[in-house]
């Protein structure tokens, strides 16, 4: 059998400049955070609390990177302005 090689190095490390190996955590999501850019006060709470650190700094508000967002809802819970709502993922299919 031929061996598939994912890693150039010894350990479970991957270089972002070549190919960053990450789990497809976005596929786990059953609900999606929707950010109301008008309500967002750019406090950064969502980015700090996000366990997978996917909140992207858009300079006036934060927006989730849906490739990796697992849909846990911590951001919506922590938002002091309730600017983030969790919507069922089915709606976007």
């Amino acid at each position, binding site marked *: 059998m031929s061996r598939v090689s994912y*890693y150039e190095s*010894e*350990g*479970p490390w*991957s*270089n*972002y400049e070549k190919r960053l*190996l990450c*789990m497809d955590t976005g596929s786990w999501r059953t609900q999606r955070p929707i950010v109301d850019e008008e309500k967002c006060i750019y406090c950064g709470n969502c980015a700090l609390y996000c366990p997978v650190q996917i909140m992207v700094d858009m300079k006036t508000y934060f927006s989730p990177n849906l490739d990796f967002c697992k849909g846990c809802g911590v951001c919506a819970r922590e938002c002091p302005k309730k600017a983030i709502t969790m919507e069922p993922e089915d709606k976007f299919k």
Partner: protein
Amino acid sequence: MSINPTDKVQVKVITGNAAAAIAVTLCRPDVIAAYPITPQSEIIERLSEFHSQGIVDAEMINVEGENSAMNAVTAASIAGGRVFTASSSWGLAFMYDAVLAAAGTRAPVVMVNVNREPPGIMAVSSGQQDMISTRDAGWIYLVAEDSQEILDMVIMAYRLAEDYEIQLPVMVHYDGFYLSFMAERVEIPTERSVDDYLSVLKEQPQRPTLIPGKPLGVVTHGLLEGYIELRHKHCTALERAKQKFDSITVDFNQQFDRSYAGQVETYRSDDADVVLVGCGSMCGTIKSVIDQKRKEGIKIGLVRLRMYRPFPAEKLTEVLKGKKVIGVVDRSLCFGFKGGPIYTEIRSLYPELGGARMLSFIDGLANMDITTAHIEQIIDTCLSASNGASCNDVTWVCYEG
């Protein structure tokens, strides 16, 4: 300030814990994170003292528990630092997931574990069960016999862990209460000689390091074939570590004028029909009993494991092949499997060893001394087995007599 500012080897009477702390200091670590626990605390106390005096130029992280300690040093190691932590027993148990992660991320963490009986029965006492309980974590395990070897083995541990061909965490074990607190003569090498010994690492390719602004995927993916690939690489590196340990020991002996064996030490076992196998401080007692028995004309010897993981199967086969009786003394248990842990592993070499009679002796649990009388009794049992007498495979020396 320096731990040994002179150009000469210093001789001091110090405890095993002090020897460990001095060895770490000589290796110039970048990050130290640890939580105190008996019988390890003195290492951390000494390092804190050296740190406050400016002798250790490292980041000392006071953590809230052992789990954090191991995670902190693993992360620092991935960021390229030389790191150190130490624990024992309950502390080792509390950091178990982080111990697995250090091995999985291939972080060359160097740690000292001062052997003590683990959680289960409250016993603040010596025993190697904590080491046995974590033996499958994927680390390299070394076991020291005396204070001098503790100091030397910690220095060798850095050379082994950080070697580009290895890149695995190394745990140096020694018997708590016996070696940790007992003061004996220790030679402290000069800083320059230790720098020289470790300088080989600087000539090697740089391992991947996590640098701010340059993201590195670390344990972010390991599904299916990727997982198998990493495990295969890990096991192959462990196999490489056996030879590597032998060769860095040769280098060490040259640099510091010592005479250590590599993975396995043999003591008067070449012409012996009956050989005992053990590791740690008990071996000093065994050696003195062997000397006595040799005077009486009884040909017995000892094989001591200096490396426990990876298991030095090839070396053990080499030195134990053709022996009539092999008596393995374990300071720990193998729950649900008859015999001590090292015994059961030596028994796995039964076909290679040509059918030796193998006997298991469990002794020294919970600080029960492995006395010369115990060793004599063990040797007598082995000798009668070699004369064809029937005897039990497993003997709990303190309990069954």
